[in-house]
């Protein structure tokens, strides 16, 4: 971010200097307020406001107060489904109707129900999701970083073609080929049941197929910002390409690796279409597949048990997201979309 700002500054050097000269005549405090008023859409952008004026509600409201109202409205909009699901997860009764009176009853019965119901292997789903998404994330980072390193640091025939094809391939999500993926996997399971339909390895392999397209480019851009002189210094000191990659580039690129791993993790947690056709047995499924089937008819489903499951399922992802927020926001502007 900081670098970007600096860049912008350098374009606009001329006008900035000019503006500062022009503004020099004005009292700085007044100027700040004038700009603030103008920004707030208030009248009299150039009116001189004497300092130490007693607190005025109108002025406060025009400057920042209305912003708080927008903020509160948006927070209510953003949070009310979350409040609803937390409330219904604490409701010991099962049905959707019973969940409507928010926080009328508090109990952990629903959590116990979903964790112990023999028909609903929730803990198994949870473990499957973590394993599948975790391995996919690690594999994605590794495969993507290898490819990005070669594109960023080596010059070879077909390099540009390779880069262009990766950019093009990433426009076509794997989901488009869900039918072919299913048929391919069922053909594979005729010969090698251990990696075919209804196996976690099979699903992870499919996800890894999508890894290169989406993430290589993100990492390629970041690797390019690591000065090649570092590699050269290492090379002179006797390091080979593998050592440079594992001990220098990967260390320096840690932030982007974290972003790619997290985005890949969230993607796999969310993925339904492919997972639902590959994982057939209930106890092999992921949270997305299992929970969706659980409430396929919300009227008859045990809604508070689902809510309890949903709360438990969202907690790790939300925690991870908020923890790595800073990095993700950087990665988002580089082209990842949820």
């Amino acid at each position, binding site marked *: 971010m900081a*670098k970007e700002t600096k860049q912008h500054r350098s374009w*606009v050097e001329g006008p900035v200097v000019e503006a500062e000269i022009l503004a020099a005549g004005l009292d700085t405090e007044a100027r700040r307020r004038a700009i603030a008023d103008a920004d707030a859409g208030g009248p009299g952008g150039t009116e001189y406001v004497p300092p130490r004026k007693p607190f005025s509600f109108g002025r406060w409201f025009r400057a920042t107060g209305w912003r708080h109202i927008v903020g509160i409205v948006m927070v209510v909009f953003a949070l009310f489904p979350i409040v609803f699901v937390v409330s219904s997860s604490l409701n010991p009764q099962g049905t959707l109707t019973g969940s409507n009176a928010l926080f009328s009853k508090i109990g952990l019965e629903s959590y116990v129900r979903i964790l112990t119901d023999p028909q609903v292997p929730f803990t198994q789903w949870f473990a499957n999701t973590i394993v599948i998404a975790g391995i996919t994330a690690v594999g994605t980072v590794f495969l993507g970083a290898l490819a990005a390193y*070669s594109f960023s640091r080596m*010059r070879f025939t077909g390099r*540009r073609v390779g880069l262009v094809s990766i*950019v093009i391939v990433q426009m076509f999500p794997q989901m488009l080929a*869900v*039918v072919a993926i299913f048929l391919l996997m069922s053909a594979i399971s005729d010969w090698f049941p251990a990696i075919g339909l209804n196996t976690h390895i099979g699903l992870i392999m499919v996800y890894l197929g999508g890894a290169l397209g989406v993430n290589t480019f993100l990492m390629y851009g970041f690797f390019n910002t690591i000065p090649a002189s570092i590699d050269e210094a290492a090379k002179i000191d006797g390091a080979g390409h593998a050592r440079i990659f594992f001990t220098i580039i990967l260390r320096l690129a840690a932030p982007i690796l974290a972003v790619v791993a997290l985005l890949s993790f969230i993607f796999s947690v969310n993925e*339904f279409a492919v997972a639902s056709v590959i994982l057939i047995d209930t106890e092999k499924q992921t949270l997305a597949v299992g929970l969706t089937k659980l409430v396929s008819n919300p009227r008859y489903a045990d809604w508070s048990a689902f809510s309890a499951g949903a709360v438990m399922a969202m907690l790790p992802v939300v925690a991870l997201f908020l923890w790595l927020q800073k990095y993700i926001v950087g990665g988002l*502007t580089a082209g990842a979309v949820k």
Partner: protein
Amino acid sequence: MTTTIDEDVTAETPQKPTNRQRRAANIADAASGGLKMILLKIVMLAILDAIAVYAVFVLVMNNQWLVAAVVAVVAAAVNWIYFSRRKLPAKYLTPGLIFLVLFQVFVLVYTGYIAFTNYGTGHNGSKEQAVSSLMASSLQRVEDSPAYPVTVVDRAGTLGLLVTDPDGDALIGTNDTPLDEVDAEFDGEKAVAVDGWTTLQFADVIARTDEITELAVPVSDDPNDGALRTPDGSSAYQYVSTLEYDEASGTMTDVTTGTVYSDIGTGAFTSDDGEELLPGWQITVGFDNFVRAVTDPRLAQPLVYVTLWTFAFALISVASTFFLGLFLAIVFNDVRMRGRRYYRVLMILPYAIPSFLSALIWAGMMNESFGFINQVLLGGAEIPWLTDPWVAKFSVLLVNLWLGFPYMFLVCMGALQSIPDELQEAATVDGAKPWAVFRLIKLPLLLVTVAPLLIASFAFNFNNFNTIYMLTDGGPRDSNAPIPVGFTDILITMVYKVAFTGQSRDYGLASAYSIIIFIIVAVIAVIAFRRTKTLEELN
């Protein structure tokens, strides 16, 4: 990055290294890797080769010569790449490329192939499989069949019948392998055990009754000879099919009615009056699926409204999330406001929650008769949020706005903050009104950063499976259409539903729809790349 050197890597000389340089690089590589790395490499390659050899062996056993050849060639290429002293880029690219080619490129090509077949329920095997399956499904007991004493046996989960024929010989067979003579142990007149098979005890026979009564062991290789079936696990009777297959003319004849079903090239035996015997088999049908999708009015109409809705959904979603996100970014991009951090964290929560869960929660809240929105917020209103074609479209957009605005908020906030304050100050001093400052200075600068993300967001929403599938399941369903399609379905959910839900699966038609999406996305991609010049800037 704290370094100040911003050396462009393209500045490296692209000339081929001299022999000396190459030798030096090799020495450096050898010095850095050490023995351990070489050993690790050899072990990894050995494991890989062992797997490849096993795979080729299994494939050859299954007569999959082409696939076996591909596996062998890929394995050889991998060995060559990693043992070679050169091929450095290939060493880094190969692992990812193998997955990419198999699970992204190949499957897209394969989708193209399936779109030209009649693959689906009733057409998912070869003609031979269809013949034996038809014969097996129309078996009828021969009236005067003798009772063959049988013993049910099991080998690795596969059930077989150990039959004693009237001559006193023991024969064994399963669903897939016809009866064949074996040496068996006899208990009196009846064969009771055979090497390599486990004889099922009475309790097992009871437990697996369903499987046992389903058994139909062909008498010989010729399907017209019929099969042996046992209703009780102790004696079997001969069954013959009411269908008779004539291999020479390729026709099926129903011996009870005398109807002749012939292979007329549609992938199923069809009688003169158009009645089809299913299962049929898989054939290529040319452009049939595409022609059917656009000319059959019952299919063409859904295709048109689904396509229009897909565009509308993607466009409105991008526009609504972008404008709300931009508005919020402007509102909260004011240093004087207190508590901005808290608003920010609370507002991005919808983005942090896995979207499938959010959509399911919204589906519960929007339930017409029991949902929170109707019952509590609107005091018992009966608004059909998810069950009326138009209201459901609105609900989908509303939920997608909820899901997507935090992303646009974050993106716009970042973009706005990277616009220097001095620009605004300069404009204000020059007498520009706030709206003019925004429209003429901030918005253009912002769009430069955000435009590629808007295109990406459009592409994402074009295939936003989760929101649609979890919230409305594409519903309300269009009861006029012969395929499971509804009024909020987008193209990708229609593909999924045609292929995997509903009474019959139609992989061919679903793949044809996939190809249509593929073409639309390709056109969008071309336009996007032309506009942004992404491809030209690659180096």
